[in-house]
């Protein structure tokens, strides 16, 4: 696989692992910048401030080393919105009068979402969660983490169930699923087994979490690799300094 393909994003708002000043910013600062830009975008009405904010918004986007292809992936959803809004404005105000308000509103809506998109594109899940720890109760975060953890698990389970049901003769190929006649098969062969699996997994996970002392204390401890690395590095430095001092002391004693 070549490097260019690896750098390309597969879907809109996907995290892009490159090094940029925006990537290096703490998530709190990014949230603040995003909020400020979004508020600024919705309050302006005149062309000049809007152009300035547009430039600022796109500079923020490209400063994060995101490409034009990424931008297309991120904002192509707004094209349909643009078409609907333009036709409604032209219908209401007529041909020349409806163009500027239509373009302005569509542009403002698209720009409003760009700072948030930059936040998603430049912030890793772990950094997001670390920031959230201070404001969201840990039990909600536990649920969020657990649900996230089970996304690949259930995706895999679904594939296995589909495969098994296909082998049993269920009509679940992409061509069959397009025909409403076979939607009953879809529910009885995939959804119900998946739900039964979810019930069993919820039982097992709840039992497992309780066995590990979940909820035993008001606060929760976290296993943070970075914090652990910092702690180990600190301890090593202290030990090295201690050893050096000991060597110096020994030398002095010998002399």
């Amino acid at each position, binding site marked *: 696989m070549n490097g260019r393909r690896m750098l390309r994003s597969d879907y809109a708002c996907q995290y892009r692992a490159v090094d940029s000043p925006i990537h290096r910013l703490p998530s709190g600062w990014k949230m603040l910048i995003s909020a400020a830009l979004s508020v600024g975008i919705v309050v302006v009405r005149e062309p000049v401030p809007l152009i300035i904010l547009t430039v600022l918004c796109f500079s923020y986007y490209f400063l994060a080393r995101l490409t034009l292809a990424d931008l297309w992936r991120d904002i192509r959803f707004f094209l349909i919105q643009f078409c609907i809004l333009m036709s*409604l404005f032209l219908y209401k105000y007529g041909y020349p009068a409806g163009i500027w*308000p239509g373009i302005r509103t569509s542009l403002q809506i698209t720009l409003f979402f760009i700072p948030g*998109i930059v936040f998603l594109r430049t912030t890793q899940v772990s950094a997001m969660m670390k920031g959230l720890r201070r404001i969201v109760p840990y039990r*909600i975060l536990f649920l969020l983490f657990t649900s996230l953890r089970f996304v690949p698990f259930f995706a895999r389970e679904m594939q296995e169930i589909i495969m098994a049901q296909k082998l049993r003769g269920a009509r679940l190929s992409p061509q069959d699923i397009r025909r409403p006649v076979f939607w009953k098969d879809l529910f009885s062969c995939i959804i119900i087994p998946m739900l039964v699996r979810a019930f069993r997994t919820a039982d097992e996970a709840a039992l497992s979490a309780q066995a590990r002392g979940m909820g035993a204390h008001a606060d929760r401890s976290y296993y943070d690799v970075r914090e652990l690395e910092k702690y180990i590095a600190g301890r090593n430095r202290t030990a090295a300094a201690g050893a050096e001092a000991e060597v110096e002391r020994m030398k002095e004693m010998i002399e």
Partner: protein
Amino acid sequence: MKKEVTFLWNRFSLREALLLGFCATFIVITKATLRMKLGISGHSMFFLMFFLMLSRGFVRKTGAATLVGLLAGGISIALGLAHKGPIIMLNFLLPALVIDFAGIFLPRLTSWYPACLLVAGLAASTKGASAAVVELMAGAPGDIIFQKAVIEGLAGVAFGMLGSLPVPPIIRKLQTNRLIPSP
């Protein structure tokens, strides 16, 4: 005897909360899968309504659908599946709030077809509400916002109602097999 772990002001047990978390996971998985395969506006409401209504049927407590909406929004943001950025949370939360609110007055919401269809339609009509909020802030006229919300909402309502159709038989089937408690 060890005290049971509870969530959200002691409303849900750990098992219930995890089950609701899995419903949120299913919403995200189906949303991600369908987004790549289909290209019809409003189709995401099909599985969103299906799983939100199911979650309310699994856990018959006010707040169940809201918790699923909250978690589905959080997972979408964390996985970068939110093409509207963090404001996508509203797309999940608003229908969930409608379902929970309706559930207060209609306890048989998920096992009675008319109520299920009506509430799913109402909840799905909130599609486009997040965009309407932004349009309102951007200074678009009220009638244009309303017309656009109607255009976007209609497809959502149709898909949402379709998505809620399989909920009553599934709930009944699960109750018959004692996987969820009967009312």
